[in-house]
C-alpha cells in the first residue's frame, strides 16, 4: 500500500514521536544538564562543568562498566542468537510435541525477570543448588557461581541467555517459515545436502532476521537490571555492575545525581553508535545483495 502523500507516514508516527519526546528525549536532555552539576537531591546543585565525566574516566569506573557491559552483551547476543537459531532449526516442523517444546522454550521469555532471577539463585546455590549437586554427583569441580568475581558475570549472562533465547527462537522460526519451500526443493534436486542448503539458502535469507534478533538482544542485554539487582546487587567486587545498575547505584546508593546523569549520557552515546553501526552493516549487506543480484 502506497501512501497518498509523503507526509502521511510521519503523521501516523507523530503520536508515538510525541510520547517519545516527552518521556524519553526530554528526560535525556534533563540528564545531560544534570551531568554538569554536583547534586545529591538534598542540597543545592553546584555547577561542576565536565568534572563528573572526568572523574568517571579517571577513576576507571567508566572503562570498567563499559568493558563489563560490552563483554556481557557479546556473550548474551552470540549465545541467544546461536541457541535461538539452533532451536528454531530443530523445532521448525509440525507436530504436537514440537509445538509443546516450542511453547516450553518460549515460556521463559514471558516470566518476569524477578521470578527468573529467584529461580536461578536457587538453582545456582553454591551448596544446595541443583547445578552444584549435579556437578558433585559427576565429580566435576563446582564453584560459588554468584559469589566468585570470576564466575558471577558468566552466571548472570547464562541466566539472561536462558531467558531470552525463546524470543530469538520465535523470531527465527518466523524467518524460517517465510523462506519459500520451493528454494529448498530446487536445491535438493540439484544435489545440495542439508549443510549446503543451510549455507546457501537458509542463512543468507535469514540475515535480516538475524540482524533484528541481534539488535533486540543487544538492547535487552544493555538493559539488564532486575537480574543483577536480585541476584548479585552488582557484586561481588563490582564484577556484575552493568551499565544500568551502575546508574542506579550512583543515583540511589551513593547520592550522586550528576555522575549518574553523566553515565546516562555516555550510555546513550554508546547505544547510538552501536545502532548506527548496525544500520551501516545492514545497508552494506543490502548493497552486496543488490550487486550479487
Amino acid at each position: 500500500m502506497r501512501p497518498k502523500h509523503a507526509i502521511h507516514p510521519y503523521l501516523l508516527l507523530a503520536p508515538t514521536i510525541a510520547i517519545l519526546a516527552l518521556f524519553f528525549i526530554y528526560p535525556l536532555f534533563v540528564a545531560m544538564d544534570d551531568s554538569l552539576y554536583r547534586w545529591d537531591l538534598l542540597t543545592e546543585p553546584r555547577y561542576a562543568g565536565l568534572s563528573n565525566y572526568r572523574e568517571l574516566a579517571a577513576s576507571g569506573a567508566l572503562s570498567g562498566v563499559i568493558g563489563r557491559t560490552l563483554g556481557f552483551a557479546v556473550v548474551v547476543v552470540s549465545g541467544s542468537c546461536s541457541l535461538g537459531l539452533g532451536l528454531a532449526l530443530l523445532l521448525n516442523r509440525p507436530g504436537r510435541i514440537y509445538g509443546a517444546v516450542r511453547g516450553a522454550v518460549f515460556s521463559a521469555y514471558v516470566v518476569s525477570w524477578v521470578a527468573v532471577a529467584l529461580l536461578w539463585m536457587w538453582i545456582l546455590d553454591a551448596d544446595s543448588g541443583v547445578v552444584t549437586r549435579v556437578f558433585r554427583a559427576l565429580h566435576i569441580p563446582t564453584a560459588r557461581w554468584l559469589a566468585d568475581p570470576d564466575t558471577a558475570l558468566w552466571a548472570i549472562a547464562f541466566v539472561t541467555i536462558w531467558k531470552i533465547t525463546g524470543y530469538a527462537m520465535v523470531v527465527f522460526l518466523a524467518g524460517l517459515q517465510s523462506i519459500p519451500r520451493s528454494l529448498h526443493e530446487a536445491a535438493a534436486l540439484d544435489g545440495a545436502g542439508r549443510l549446503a542448503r543451510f549455507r546457501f539458502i537458509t542463512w543468507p535469507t535469514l540475515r535480516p532476521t538475524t540482524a533484528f534478533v541481534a539488535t533486540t538482544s543487544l538492547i535487552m542485554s544493555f538493559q539488564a537490571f532486575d537480574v543483577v539487582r536480585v541476584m548479585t546487587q552488582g557484586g561481588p567486587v563490582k564484577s556484575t555492575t552493568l551499565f544500568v545498575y551502575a546508574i542506579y547505584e550512583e543515583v540511589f546508593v551513593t547520592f550522586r545525581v550528576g555522575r549518574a546523569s553523566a553515565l546516562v549520557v555516555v550510555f546513550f552515546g554508546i547505544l547510538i553508535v552501536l545502532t548506527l553501526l548496525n544500520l551501516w552493516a545492514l545497508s552494506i549487506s543490502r548493497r552486496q545483495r543488490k550487486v550479487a543480484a
Partner: protein
Amino acid sequence: MKRRALLGGSLGAVGALGAGALGAGALGAVGLAGCGSDRGPALWFSYGGKNREALLALVERHNRERPEAAIHAVFQGDYFELLAKLRTAIHAGAPPALTHVVGEVLPYLAAADVLEPLEPLVDEASRGGFIPALSQSGAFDAPASTPTYGIPFNRSTPIAYLNRQILEELGASSPKTWDELRALAAKASRGAAGDKRYGFACPIDWWMWVAMVGQAGGELLEGDTFTLGGDAGLRALQLWKDMAAAGHMMLPAGRDYNAWTVTNTEFLAGRVAMIWSSTAFVRYLEENAKFPVVAAPLPKDARFAVPTGGTFFVAPKGAPPEHRVATASFLEFMSRADTSNEFATKTGYIPATKAGIAELEHAGFYASHPNDRVAVEQLDAVQRWPWHRNLFRIQREIVQSRLESAVLGGADARASLDDARRAAREEL
C-alpha cells in the same frame, strides 16, 4: 529508499532511546515518590519478618490508644531502599511525617538540613531516659551543641553467635581474643569443598570491619582526616584475608543484606560453627536453629570495641505541620520503657531505655535469656561514630567496595586501604 532508511533509522534510534532512557527514567522517577498523605501522617519503615510484625503491632496499639494522633505505617524496602525513597520524597516535597534511618547517615542528613530537631517534639525526660550508648549523643562523637535529630529505636551492635553442639564437640569456648578466634575457626573447620564446614563466617561488611578497627585500637577519623584506623584498619582487613585464605572463614555471597541472610542461613544449616552478625538476629537464630545458639561478645585485639548499628527515628522537614501531633505522639509512645521492651524482646534489638532494661532485669528476662544479656553487657565496649557529614559516603562509596575488593577480589589489603584513604581525602 531514503525515506525507508530514515524510518529504519528512527526505529533503531527508538531502541537506543528506550535503553538509554532507562537510566534517565530512573532519575525521572525521583519526582514520583510521595508520602501518601491522603491517609494522614505516615511512618515509613524498613523492617521485614518478625521485626515488621512487632512494629505493626505497636503502631496499631498506638493508634488504638491515641486515635486523634493515628499514624499509618508504610513498608519501604530495606534500609538503603528506604533511604533512597526518603531522599526522593524530600526532594519532591512530600516526605513522610516520620521514618527511621541507619545511624551512619544521620550526620549527612543533618548537615543537609533536611531533618527537624526533635527537642520540641520529645520532652527532656524521655530524651534523658535512653541508654547513652544507644542515643544520638552517646553513639556519635558530636559537638555538645548538636540538636537531637534521631531518637533511638531498633538499636544493635555486632555480636558473635556460636553453635553449642560444635563447641562441645571440640571442647572449646567462645573466643575472647583474635588469636583465640583464629584458633577456634581453624579447629572447627573440616571437610572439603562440597561438604565443608567452616569455623567462621561474617558478612564482608563495613560495620564488622569498623568493629575490628576499634578492637585493634584504631579510629576512623583522627582530627579532620579519615585515617580509617591506620595500621589497625590493615590488621582488621588482613585478619579476614588470612582466615579466608586458610579456608577457615566462609565468604558469604551477595552484598548488603543478602550477605547477612546468607551468613545466618549457613549458620542455621550447621555449615558454619561461629558467625558475626547483629544482636537483632538473636531471636530469629534461637527460634530457627536445630542446635543451641550461644551469643558472645566480639573478641578483642588491643581492646574490646563495637560500633552501634540499627536505626534512629527522624522527622524529615517538609512534612505537613498538622502531622506533627502524630509524630510527637508516636515518638513519645515509642520512647516508653514498655513499648521499647516489647519491640526488643520480640526481635532481639537492644531495649533503648534505661528503665526498660531495669524492668527486664527485675522480671527475670535476662536470667532466662542469657544471649540478650550479652548484647546489653557489650554496650560497655561501644565505640562512638565520628559525627561527620561524609561518614555515609566513606562507608558506602569508599570503604565497602574496597573491603570487598581486598577480601573477595584478592586485592592487596594495604593497597586497598591506601586507595580508600586517598579517595576519602579527595572527597573532603
